[in-house]
């Protein structure tokens, strides 16, 4: 077990390191210059050079990279070139907002997507199946920002049930929770459709197996077939997709964040990329990469719990 954990941690470190390295060089490969962003329209060559030197941008890229690695291993990801605040602090401040949105969005998605997928599989070929899959297709096809605006118009403007803004400047758990409802539903809906379709096909695949047919001929009740035999065996692919969508939500909640004016990792990274705030982008990518990798590791372990056959692998 200890050996296993050690190996996992090493793999984790290598993967995250790889992702951050790619991000480092990609950011520097795209056109745009932080010094030009900060000095803007009145910049002169002399002042640009002075600022580049102050920010260390005058060094060759490989030297910048070595410096970055040297500092990063001690937990220092530098400071935002724009605000001067520690980059990691700024990103970690955005993390709780993203996590809370991704988690509640995922709960909505699972609560909706899994049952709908199961019903659709059980009622395969009937109008129920057709309707559910049609709605799911719509859910996947509609852009998230469109759904967000539609939700704001309906629930916030017309009905006045929820606020239009996804975060409040007022304190308190219930106030913030009230503001979170619409963004979570919109994010959840966009993912629910995806989960429903995958749950359906995973269920259908399992229900087509020989042992299910055998169980049926042996007179096992249908409910038991669906939930004990079917769902349990379909859970691994469903879990896999939930894991992937969670990681997806963390990074891609940005559209939801923008529409609902909610802070988060996505919008903070976008802001950093636009400002060519290299340090801030680096910190954001590190957190996202770590999050995605950790979720995948956690899922690998969860598969083992759900399906004992996978434990040996």
């Amino acid at each position, binding site marked *: 077990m200890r050996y296993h954990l050690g190996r996992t941690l090493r793999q984790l470190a290598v993967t995250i390191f790889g992702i951050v390295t790619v991000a480092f060089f990609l950011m520097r490969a795209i056109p745009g210059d932080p010094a030009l962003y900060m000095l803007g329209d009145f910049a002169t060559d002399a002042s640009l050079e002075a600022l580049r030197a102050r920010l260390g941008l005058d060094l060759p890229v490989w030297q910048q990279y070595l410096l970055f690695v040297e500092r990063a291993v001690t937990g220092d990801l530098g400071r935002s070139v724009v605000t001067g605040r*520690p980059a990691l602090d700024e990103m970690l401040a955005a993390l709780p907002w993203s996590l809370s949105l991704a988690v509640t969005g995922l709960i909505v998605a699972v609560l909706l997507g899994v049952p709908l997928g199961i019903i659709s599989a059980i009622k395969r070929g009937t109008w129920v199946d057709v309707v559910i899959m049609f709605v799911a297709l719509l859910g996947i096809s509609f852009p998230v920002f469109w759904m967000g605006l539609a939700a704001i118009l309906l629930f916030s403007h017309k009905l006045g049930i929820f606020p239009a803004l996804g975060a409040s400047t007022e304190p308190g758990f219930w106030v913030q929770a009230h503001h979170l409802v619409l963004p979570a539903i919109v994010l959840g809906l966009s993912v629910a459709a995806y989960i429903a379709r995958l749950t359906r096909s995973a269920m259908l695949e399992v229900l087509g197996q020989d042992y299910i047919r055998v169980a049926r001929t042996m007179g096992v009740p249908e409910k038991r077939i669906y939930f004990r035999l079917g769902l349990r065996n379909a859970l691994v692919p469903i879990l896999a997709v939930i894991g992937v969508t969670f990681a997806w939500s963390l990074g891609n909640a940005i559209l939801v964040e923008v529409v609902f004016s909610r802070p988060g990792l996505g919008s903070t990274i976008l802001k950093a990329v636009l400002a060519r705030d290299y340090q801030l982008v680096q910190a954001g990518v590190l957190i996202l990469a770590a999050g995605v990798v950790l979720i995948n590791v956690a899922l690998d372990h969860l598969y083992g719990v759900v399906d004992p056959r996978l434990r040996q692998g």
Partner: protein
Amino acid sequence: MAEHEKSAGPSTGRRRFLKLSGAAALGVSAPFSLFGARMARAAGGQLRVRIGSDISVLDPALIFQIENQTVASHVYNGLVKYDQATNAITPDLAAEWEVSEDGRTYTFHLKDGVAFHKGYGALKASDVKFSFDRVRDEATGSRYRGQFASIDSVEAPDDRTVVIRLKNANSGFLHKVCAFNQGWIVSEKAVTEKGEAYKLDPIGTGPFIFDSWTAGTSVRMVANPEYFEGAPQIGEVVLRLIKDETASAIALENGEIDIAFALQQPQVIDRLKAADGVTMLSREANNTVNLVLNTTIAPLDDVRVRRAIIHALNRKGLIDGFFMGTKAEAHSVLTPTFQEYSQDVPTYDYDPDKARALLKEAGAEGFEFEIVTVALNPYDKFPVPMADDLNRVGINTKITVLERGAYVEARASGRVKSCITAVVGPPDPDSPLVTLYSTVSFPPGLNTSQYAGVDDLLAAASAEQDLEKRKALYEDVLQKTMEDVPVAPIYADRLFMAHSDKVGGLVQNSLFTVDTYSVSLTE
């Protein structure tokens, strides 16, 4: 390792990392307590203002972007300021000032009883000297260094007196020390003590005290009860970040915010005009939006080609159709908000036949043209009908939309054929004219057309003491530049700001910022 690399940022430290990771791991519950600490309500109520972009730097030497300027205009004062309604220059920290006969020495007498926020003591003339010298110092890396190029020295003979000596007489000098960007006065003690942290912890003398910034969400300022012109009527101002304009309109109608400023989308403006309980304010901005033509690239180096381009553009159609009348026609790059504005300039009607004839005359029919623009609403959209107009007269026009970072870099290279540029700033004629037409603004500055025809006139205008003569010189600049057309003004910007009926006393300025000092709230 280079020294600057080491000093670029103190180590965050492992312990800090672990602590923050722990906080992040709390995940769901953490955001709900983020605002808890400092929500004590001030007596006069809370005013909530929508901003469209997050703030960044609040240090006047380094400041940019209207959101930062809006915060700074509440926190700081200058020696003089623009009247919100008329743009006239009026006293601010300086009670009065004298100009020497030769126009080269300005002596300012500071008001009594002005104190910096958060216990940083009384305002002294040395703070003013420090503020200006800091912008002038190359090591500060200020984008406004050029604005003070006319200053020879700043002296503070006593605590109440500031003497500024100029290299040459400059009748527009008061604009340079006006309460905007480089003109804002900082506390020497605070800047020195706070160092890098000052960027987001500004200390000024203004009507509001900067309280907190929550990245991605909001900025909070509280009323300064000791403000030298009297405490504001509202207790605190919260600038709320709402990127999407439609969402901000709904939030305003729902009463989740009180003021939505910097509105751009014609549909949103229309919607709010018709909304119950909402008042729409509108006025001319200080800037035009322009098509800058690179006069160093053939055939754009031929004035007939440039005139053909401006004749080919249906600018009125763009304003009426595309912008649904939310913008105004521009005859030059100065708008009527400037004292130096003149309508007596060559004008160019929409005349495709004339455009074709000019192109034929110049032998430039069917040339390849490119409009480089930035991926921001509406700059990425209105060049489409423009390209259509140009194609119709036989100019093969391609539009290149670049993300902002790439756009600024491309424009700074000086090698683009044409680009869309707006010079947003105070009503100081030097701001657009020197920026767009002077050789001191050659790329990487904003004279992307690399035009060199009015340097003498610009220098003469700024040295002229007599206002009428000065206006005449600026008029010459406008006439000459509209004859040569290195820059084709597309439209004059208009500013739209909506507020709920709870808000009283709001005056819209032409600076793109919002000033809430005069605002009161009714329940």
